[in-house]
């Protein structure tokens, strides 16, 4: 164990030199008067507020419609860097879907002894109702959000996979929109690949997984829990861009072998549901009986091939943090390829040896709950005091299966506007991979940035911000 801090990779710099990808931006920054900067910053905020790009936080007091802080300094990826990420993410999405199709069917990977059975069948996200069911084109997870971090010029790691309903893509699109509006000159001088094809690609992907019983143009809808959901803005934004209906559970009903939506002209059949609600709320007849969010009888229509649900119920079994460790194994097993993107080395507290190591080295590690999300329920060892570490250790001893641990990576930092000018702040990246007839993604993703100096937590629920993410053309 070494006591020296690992050097942090600054994405803009190579030694003292500005990396070529950032040269335009550096010039732009240096020629921008401070007054213009604050003017543009408030202009950006007004734009976000005006188009209503907010995320809802209820029950915490304060303004229930908050803005996610937007940082105007873009994050840049070169064509070469992107090519690797693009291939790596698509490879991962393919393997995750192959895994899902397998665990709900023949379970070959388990029988081959490559993944322990209990990790799958004891998993809360494992959906018994999906056993033996093959969704159209065998796709379970149609939108895979892969969270990536970087530690060096050529070193990217996958932090986690989101196979259920990854959010944030509206920020990817809006950040670009607002940057283009505020700094058109910058875009003329740089060759930045567009991301605005995303909505078209998403619609094409969803239509490509229409059920067999569907005749003619599939009717695609987005199912939202409603306006009080924190991502409601995103749901309505995507519905708008795709030109499809944004429905709530109360707008749908089951009759005969199909799902219908209530319209002013009477019932209209629904073929594909991009749901942004959790499995547990899809159908009160199957899952939570007291929930009003879902549609009674939806699961039986789904199973009989009358409607496609995206992502498929049960897809979450592929994205929990215990399964994560095995994704490289999946890539080898199903695709016969070597993983292009690396996992972060991970200790599983469920294994006795790993657990011992973790407990002995807590102050160096990041510990996460297997099913946790959003930066909650985690321990950042180097940032925690002794008593926090001790009480966390007790939790791990009590329920080791519930935790995994990873080394604290030296996350790369990207120049970010701060009071005094710019300063490096840690970032991550979430590209959105679409899986249907084809596997595709637009060149870009959501860059989240930890605005507090030294902080590694980028989640919006924990005070993180967002940036525009540029992929340069070849």
């Amino acid at each position, binding site marked *: 164990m070494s006591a020296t801090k690992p050097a942090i990779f600054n994405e803009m710099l190579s030694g003292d030199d500005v990396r070529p990808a950032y040269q335009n931006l550096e010039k732009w920054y240096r020629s921008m008067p401070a007054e213009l900067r604050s003017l543009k910053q408030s202009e950006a905020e007004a734009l976000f507020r005006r188009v209503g790009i907010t995320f809802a936080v209820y029950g915490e007091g304060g303004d229930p419609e908050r803005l996610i802080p937007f940082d105007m300094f873009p994050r840049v990826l070169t064509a070469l860097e992107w090519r690797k990420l693009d291939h790596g993410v698509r490879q991962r999405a393919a393997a995750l879907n192959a895994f899902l199709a397998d665990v709900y069917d023949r379970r070959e990977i388990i029988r081959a002894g490559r993944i322990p059975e209990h990790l799958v069948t004891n998993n809360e996200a494992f959906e018994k109702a999906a056993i033996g069911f093959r969704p159209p084109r065998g796709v379970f997870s149609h939108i895979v959000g892969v969270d990536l971090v970087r530690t060096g010029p050529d070193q990217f790691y996958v932090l986690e996979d989101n196979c259920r309903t990854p959010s944030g893509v509206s920020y990817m699109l809006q950040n670009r929109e607002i940057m283009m509006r505020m700094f058109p000159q910058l875009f003329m001088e740089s060759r930045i690949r567009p991301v605005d094809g995303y909505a078209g690609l998403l619609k094409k992907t969803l239509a490509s997984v229409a059920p067999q019983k569907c005749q003619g143009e599939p009717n695609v809808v987005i199912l939202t829990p409603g306006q009080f959901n924190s991502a409601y803005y995103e749901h309505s934004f995507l519905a708008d861009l795709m030109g499809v*209906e944004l429905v709530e559970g109360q*707008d749908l009903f089951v009759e005969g072998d199909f799902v219908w939506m209530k319209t*002013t002209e009477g019932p209209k059949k629904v073929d594909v549901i991009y749901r942004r609600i959790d499995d547990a709320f899809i159908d009160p007849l199957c899952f939570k009986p007291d929930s009003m969010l879902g549609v009674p009888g939806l699961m039986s229509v789904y199973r009989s091939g009358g409607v496609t649900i995206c992502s498929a119920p049960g897809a979450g079994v592929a994205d929990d943090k215990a399964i994560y460790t095995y994704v490289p194994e999946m890539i080898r097993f199903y695709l016969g390829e070597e993983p292009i993107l690396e996992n972060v080395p991970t200790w599983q507290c469920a294994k006795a040896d790993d657990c011992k190591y973790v407990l002995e080295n807590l102050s160096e590690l990041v510990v996460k709950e297997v099913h946790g999300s959003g930066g909650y329920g985690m321990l950042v060892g180097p940032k925690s005091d002794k008593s926090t570490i001790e009480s966390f250790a007790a939790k791990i001893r009590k329920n080791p299966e519930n935790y995994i641990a990873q080394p604290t990576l030296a996350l790369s930092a990207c120049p970010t506007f701060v009071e005094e000018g710019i300063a490096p702040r840690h970032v991550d990246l979430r590209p959105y991979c679409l899986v249907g007839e084809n596997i595709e993604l637009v060149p870009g993703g959501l860059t989240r940035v930890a605005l507090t100096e030294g902080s590694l937590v980028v989640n919006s629920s924990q005070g993180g911000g967002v940036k525009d993410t540029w992929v340069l053309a070849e």
Partner: protein
Amino acid sequence: MLSRTADHLYWMARYIERAETTARLLEVGARNALLPNATGGYRNDWEAVLLAKGALEPFIEKYKDTNQRNIETFLFFDADNPSSVFSCLAAARENARVVRTALTAPAWDAINSSFQELRQLQRTERSKLMVTDLCEWTLRACQLIRGAFMSTQLRNDGYDFMGIGTTIERADNTARLIDVKYYVLLPSVNYVGSGLDQSQWALLLQSMTAQRAFNWSYQGEITAAKIAHLLILNRRFPRSLRACVQWYCEHLDDLAENYQNGTEAQEVAHKLLDDLRNATVDDIFEEGLHEFLARFMTRNAEVATTVHNVYLSGMPA
């Protein structure tokens, strides 16, 4: 269109219209308080305004005293009062927010910025706010919002549902405003034709921004018959009962054409329009103005119920 979307658009429009009526009533009350006081002080007049909103009881319960300041607070700012300007605009904005994708950017912008301004007013010290300014602000905000609808929204079914909501609500509100004047503001039949009666009719015109319309349409002095004609039967006056009913008939016809399917809502509405076309002021006074208005409100509500059943429930009969 999703029934729920149509429902939100319809109610958004109704709430905007309702906010405007509350402001108009508040204006009437405040003006009335300035009139010579023949019947025991302005107290009664304020109570009349509250009665018109069906809000006298909840008001007394919360504020006890019917002074002007309390009533202003109650009718303008009070979130507990469902028909206060604040509640109506908040409800309109909430309905709009849910169906953002069915509104153009300028339409949403008009609603949302009006609501932000209203919040600003809420934070302003009350002694700096004049009731007339509050009423004028409300009228201007509502007109801005409707203007944004009219000049930017696609003329599709959503537009029709907004139009239907606006005009059903407006017809009901106009009927109520006339009714207030006749049965509540006027303490006794003895005053009919008196100076007080006269100035109250004038006030009613003013509350509907109808003085100029009146002068353009009718010569000579203000009489009950002329005003009743303007506000009930004149198809050219945009707040008259007939104009409102005609307006929603047009929207319903438009829907039937879009959907290639006529409905019961259309029939009920056209029946009401025919009756208004054939009515005369003499008939109305013979039946009794109050009775006529009550009957109208029931039939107007029946149109609303039918629209709901046919289009907004998602399950047409």
